[in-house]
């Protein structure tokens, strides 16, 4: 799995500074190479529960510019919440399956590396489903819900426009509507938007 990923990234023109199998080696490696982004599996030795997540949170506290893409076989909403606790900038949380769609995966990785956010659609679905604001979500139109999901994943307006095959202006209108209906402060940067939406869904 790790070898395959390295091969994929090299193939796509990334520079892979290191590939390691346990949290301490990860910390040392980041310390030494100062990469743009670290791809971290949530389960790592010794107990294979959430060592990867712990290491990721530590790394974020120590290296402010470092993007972290967490990789997992399952989506646990609690993990996402812990990770996004104070900032959504440079955070990604994806199911491992997403690597099969190479282009989407690479896009997400680039987004995280450049300080954006990439949340798995699964995370967003869980948050939308589990939200106690289910009634407020029902005031959105079908299109607005689609836009909300993509926005929560961390996509920019341009990316949402491409995905839904509509104009960027239309997306901006939908986003403004969503923020108005939810009574959220309008924010320009993409990752602040994500955080605002998530906070709203979790509250």
């Amino acid at each position: 799995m790790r070898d395959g990923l390295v091969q994929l990234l090299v193939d796509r023109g990334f520079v892979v500074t290191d590939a390691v199998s346990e949290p301490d080696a990860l910390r040392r490696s980041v310390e030494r190479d100062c990469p743009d982004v670290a791809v971290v599996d949530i389960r790592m030795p010794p107990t294979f529960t959430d060592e990867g997540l712990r290491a990721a949170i530590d790394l974020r506290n120590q290296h402010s510019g470092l993007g972290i893409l967490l990789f997992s076989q399952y989506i646990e909403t609690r993990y996402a919440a812990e990770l996004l606790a104070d900032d959504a900038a440079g955070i990604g949380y994806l199911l491992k399956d997403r690597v099969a769609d190479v282009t989407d995966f690479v896009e997400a990785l680039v987004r995280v590396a450049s300080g954006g956010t990439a949340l798995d659609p699964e995370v967003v679905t869980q948050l939308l489903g589990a939200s106690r604001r289910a009634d407020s979500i029902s005031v959105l139109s079908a299109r607005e819900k689609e836009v909300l999901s993509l926005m929560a994943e961390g996509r920019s307006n341009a990316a949402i426009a491409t995905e839904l095959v509509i104009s960027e202006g239309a997306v901006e209108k939908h986003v403004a509507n969503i923020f108005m209906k939810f009574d959220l402060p309008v924010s320009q940067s993409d990752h602040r938007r994500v955080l605002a939406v998530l906070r709203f869904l979790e509250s």
Partner: protein
Amino acid sequence: MISEDLETRLRGTVGTILREPFTKRTWSEFWFLVLGAALAFFGIAFVGLTMVVGVVFAITFFGLAVIGLSLRGARGIGRIQRGMARGLLGEQIEDPDPFSPRPGFLGWLQSALRDRTGWRSMAYVAVKVPLAIFGIFTAFSVWFDAFTCLTYPFVGGNQPSEFGLIRVLFQPGYFSIGGPGWLHGAAIFFTGIVLFLVAPWAVRAVIYVDRFLMQALLAPDAMAIRVRSLEHARAQTVDASAATLRRIERDLHDGTQAQLVALAMRLGMAKEKLADPDNLDLDQVRELVNSAHRGAKETIVELRDLARGIHPPALDIGLEGALSTLAARSTIPTDLALSFNDRPTPAIEAIAYFCVAELLANVAQHANASQASVTCAQHGRWLRLVVRDDGIGGAQLSKVGSSSSGLVGLTERVHAVDGRFDITSPPRGPTVVTVDLPLHA
């Protein structure tokens, strides 16, 4: 020779008799007699009162609740009694399981009324009262009279007061030899000494009966012990099956799933390369497809091994066939001797199979053996498995490590069905593991 021996023994006995009234044990027993009697009277008063009220109102919840309280109280009295026995007599009486009522008032009531420990404690109180009365009129009265006789010459008076057994046996006035005077006083004092020497043994005799009663009524009975061991076994089974599920999840997660993700990733890369015909590098694509193909085949093998670990398909044809396959597949030459007529239940077959599989794997990995044998024979309603090897021995259950943690897991599975797991493995061998399993679990 003989007379000397007799003299030694006689001297020993006399010494014991003379020393006994001054030992700690004697006085502990004396206090146990007195405090035990007090507790018994308090207990019968409490139980009697609450039970009468409870039975009178038994038609209402109030009455049942009072009976429940009575039983809870009896349990408490039993606990105090056990504590006294432990503290004063050094008698170890095992504590019954603590009262753990089901939630809610009705749950509490039901649990309290069905509390065997409570009922048995109540029975103890009921039986203890006559014993306590008996003890006071016999054993205690000896102490009492010894005391009055010994103090009589110094306190004076007409007659030492008499009480209990002594009074009944000797009638009032047996002390009055020769009327008042120094001879009279000396005779009474001497009687006091005799009683003083007898008293410890009288108390001990009564307490002997009480020890028996306490063991019979205040310790957990055979059924409670059986229930406890079954509960323990059940907990182990539940834990073991949870651990098994966890292991399977781990294997699926770290093995199969990861391999499938890698497979999908390679195919995804190949697909994207094929979608761009202008810069097509066929060698690269071929390499990607090749490694994906290899990965798919490895995954199939892993998945098959995993499935076999959950339920060996060989067992579908029966334990005989499955064990033959195991013996044949073992890397150490293995003799197999099977003799059973009745087919065990599937759960037992699975346990037997996993025992033999794990033990043979251990033999191959650790024993450094040249020969192994497996026998599986039916003895009535039991199945006895013996796995033997001529290796270096030294296998242990307690050792921490991959091989022996497997053994611990096996013993837990075997104990869960009331089986027995025995291992003898002296240094330099040979190792013999004997597993007894019931045919039907």
